[in-house]
């Protein structure tokens, strides 16, 4: 019985220690972001790796999600004779919820896992240690540009996801199911820029920040072994997705309730 409580206590202590390390890590990485002013190339390079290279999965996913939304919406709304509301349904669903959430989850899977694996491997091959011994702070040189690139990329990818999703809805609703193009695009105008679009962008910024923080921290804090790197990538995707969904509920409650 004593052993059980001891193990639970150790687990709680380890969790708090890890949270402390993550906060310390974040603080020093954020300070490192200021050094990027002098070296924008480091940021541009990472924007390419985590942002531009995530475009294909975002485009394809956005298109299919929009098509499915259009199809599902049509099968429900046609019973009530209000298929002209499909435009607002698709756009609101994308802008408020699915765009930010799915983009963040896809980003965690595509770019987050790659970041965790890259940094974890750099640690296990002593590249981070070598940098420290060369008097180069890896939190500034390696982590900060990746963190900022994630924070910038996710909102932009979300906007692209939303736009492509709405076009996917158009393909199904207008081109295949024959709903009037004017009503599809016209009703989408009822999306409120400040309440809906801006709140969606704020959500995606929060998700981008949290998912990228999780990814770079998991890579940096991993055990320097093959198993450790594997665990770091898995935890990045799982924790990134769970954090996104949990935060989405909180933000939705704050913004729309």
């Amino acid at each position, binding site marked *: 019985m004593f052993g059980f409580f001891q193990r639970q206590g150790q687990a709680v202590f380890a969790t708090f220690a890890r949270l402390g390390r993550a906060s310390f890590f974040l603080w020093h990485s954020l300070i490192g972001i200021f050094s990027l002013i002098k070296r924008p190339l480091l940021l541009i390079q990472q924007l390419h790796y985590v942002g531009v290279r995530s475009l294909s999965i975002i485009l394809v996913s956005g298109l299919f999600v929009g098509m499915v939304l259009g199809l599902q919406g049509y099968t429900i709304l046609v019973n009530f004779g209000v298929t002209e509301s499909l435009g607002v349904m698709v756009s609101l669903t994308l802008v408020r919820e699915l765009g930010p959430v799915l983009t963040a989850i896809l980003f965690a899977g595509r770019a987050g896992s790659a970041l965790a694996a890259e940094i974890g*491997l750099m640690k296990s091959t002593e590249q981070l240690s*070598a940098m*420290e011994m*060369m008097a180069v702070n890896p939190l500034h040189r390696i982590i900060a540009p990746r963190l900022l690139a994630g924070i910038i990329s996710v909102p932009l990818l979300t906007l692209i996801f939303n736009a492509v999703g709405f076009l996917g809805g158009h393909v199904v609703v207008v081109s295949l199911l024959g709903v009037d193009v004017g009503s599809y695009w016209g009703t989408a105008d009822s999306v409120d820029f400040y309440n809906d679009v801006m709140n969606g962008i704020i959500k995606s910024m929060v998700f981008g920040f949290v998912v990228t923080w999780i990814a770079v921290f998991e890579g940096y804090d991993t055990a320097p072994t093959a198993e450790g790197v594997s665990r770091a990538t898995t935890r990045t995707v799982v924790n990134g997705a769970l954090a996104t969904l949990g935060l989405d509920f909180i933000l939705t409650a704050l913004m729309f309730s």
Partner: protein
Amino acid sequence: MKPANSEQLVEIKDLCFYRGERAIFDHINMSIPRGKITAIMGPSGTGKTTLLRLIGGQIIPEQGEVWVDGEHIGELSHKGLYQLRKRMGILFQSGALLTDLNVFDNVAFPLREHSDLPDALIKTLVHMKLQSVGLRGAVKLMPSELSGGMARRVALARAIALDPMILLYDEPFTGQDPISFGVLARLIRSLNDALQLTSVIVSHDVQETCEIADYLYIIANGKVVGQGTPEELYQSDSPWVQQFLKAKPDGPVPFHYPAPDYAEDLI
């Protein structure tokens, strides 16, 4: 900070370091003389790499002091430690080259990070460093295209890029073929003499290390069990030193890992 000792570049005083309950170093004292090659040897798992990390300030000891060129490592600020590290070079066992940069950019990395030199001058310096390790022709190769020995030589060129006062070598000979062995040993000796460096080699390759080292420390069980010039140590009557230098399978370092009674385990 105290006035730098003109004789000793590194001084380790009453150092204790633990991993859990196990003492890796138990009140050890060492001095690394300036301008010499000092080798720290001992069986695997005795904390030789840990000692390099203590000298480099990557870990701080529980007790005792590490002084490098008059600076107390444990009391340096983050900035002070980084300033000191600019005067130190380290060759990791794996080379630890940055895998997304080619050979040129790897060697140029510390120069670009710590100086505002124009590209033309950096190019000249990188070529000079690579020439000194015989790899100027490999300037455009990626780390994945290098053999293990070549990767270590590139890492060596990178380590001397900022003209350090001390070079730390972590197991430089491990996994090398005889030719690479010879090349690396000759390079360590010639770089030390030509650049007037102080070199610390951590290794368990007895013969190769003894050939180039001026002074040796042998550590085992957290203690310094022998020290002196290679000739002095070969004549030592310490059972620890004799077991290590003559590669005896059993002795003070037992062949068997501690275990319960053999007969009881079998029956």
